[in-house]
């Protein structure tokens, strides 16, 4: 009998990450296009504007901060991660050496890598928009802060990662065993009811008051939690090709 091949999970995951990162690249190009569209839409007003009347002056500030593109990137990460768990991608995984576990781990790494690139794309969008404003509104340009601080960058990365992790988890849950599916659906439903019944019950202020790094750590912690749950559920999931 031919000797069996012994391949470690690690080797397979590395190979899968290598191929997936390349094959899912259209996700990143969609981020670029989404950001260009939103960049143009918010060109006149920025992430938000504030006005104030002072005597005979009416001052209007258009603030160009990172908020809008961060929100967009986070939503993008969520959707893309959700798409990673769809049938088309799962079936593609079966064509090469893979297990549900290896595919889940590979997806996680791809999300992490893409989050990193998403931050870089975000920065690019920000400065391109800033340049547009600087050229178009030369005389009423106020530069408060041109350099993005590293702690903000880390925070952006961890936020995008967190949303990606949630997308992966949600996608995996709905392909997983029925028990988990029902449990999570109930949980989400209750959560939504809670939010709609009493919007004030969720107070994010204590989180916001933490330092950037602390928020990042918190986000990454939750992301890791989502990732490990994803792997656990994937372990138990059957392949459904219907």
């Amino acid at each position: 009998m031919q000797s069996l091949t012994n391949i470690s999970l690690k080797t397979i995951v590395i190979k899968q990450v290598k191929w997936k990162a390349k094959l899912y690249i259209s996700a990143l190009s969609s981020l670029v296009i989404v950001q260009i569209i939103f960049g143009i839409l918010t060109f006149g007003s920025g992430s938000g504007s504030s006005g104030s009347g002072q005597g005979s002056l009416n001052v209007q500030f258009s603030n160009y901060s990172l908020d809008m593109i961060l929100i967009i990137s986070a939503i993008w990460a969520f959707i893309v991660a959700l798409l990673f768990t769809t049938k088309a991608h799962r079936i593609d995984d079966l064509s090469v050496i893979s297990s549900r576990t290896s595919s889940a781990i590979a997806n996680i790494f791809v999300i992490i890598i893409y989050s990193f690139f998403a931050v870089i794309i975000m920065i690019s969008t920000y400065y391109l928009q800033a340049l547009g404003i600087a050229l178009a509104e030369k005389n009423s340009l106020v530069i408060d802060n041109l350099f993005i601080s590293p702690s903000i960058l880390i925070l952006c990365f961890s936020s995008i990662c967190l949303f990606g992790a949630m997308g992966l988890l949600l996608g995996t849950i709905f392909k997983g065993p029925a028990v988990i599916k029902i449990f999570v659906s109930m949980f989400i439903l209750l959560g939504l009811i809670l939010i709609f019944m009493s919007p004030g019950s969720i107070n994010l202020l204590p989180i916001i008051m933490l330092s950037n790094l602390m928020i990042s750590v918190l986000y990454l912690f939750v992301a890791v939690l989502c990732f490990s749950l994803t792997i656990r559920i994937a372990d138990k999931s059957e392949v459904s090709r219907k």
Partner: protein
Amino acid sequence: MTTTFFLFFIPLLFIAAIVLLLGKLSKKIKIWTPKRIIIGITSYIVLGLIAFLYISFFSESKIPLLSFSKIKQLEIKLDQIQKYDQEDDSSYLTEEYKKKTWDLKYEGNTLPVVINEGDSGSSINFRVRYNDNIESGKALVTYYQFPVIVEGIDLSDEVPLPNVYVAQNQLFIEALSKQQINYYRINATLGILDMNREIEHKPYAMFYSNVIVIDIPRSTVLEDSQGLF
């Protein structure tokens, strides 16, 4: 709740639509091979870098931002002004704040004053000073402008001057209509965080009512039908 809905769910649906549409399109359009997509993304990033370099080297803001200590100084000054003002001490009306003086002529011993502030929303304090050094038939109208600081920007120069003139032997003081100023500020941080955190940061706006002082000889009676003095 509705704002959260619009802020979050509309972009969510929008982005989902774009991502799905692009996914479908990229399958149809064969020119988008992974290699070309990577080249496209890389050039976008490089463009961003160039934009950053360009702004940081060539794009200087013409509007100076006041430093924190400078704002603190001004705050103290404005406090003092308020104190003097409440004590009817006009010594705060120094040369430093004098913006413009009108030298006006009129006839007779009475000078009716018509003040028209219109919809400008300006708040000007009016003072009358009987000045022995002024000949009769002459009036000096002096406009004092105090610092106006909004979000760290000194806007004193932007405040429009009032129109001051004598016609039909009446002194007209008209404030100009409201001035609209737009600023585009680049602040590479997260606004949500700053807004909630920096409650005790720089004051949002500081200003003090501007003052118009009318110097007239003692012999003249200023007729004030609007009861402003």
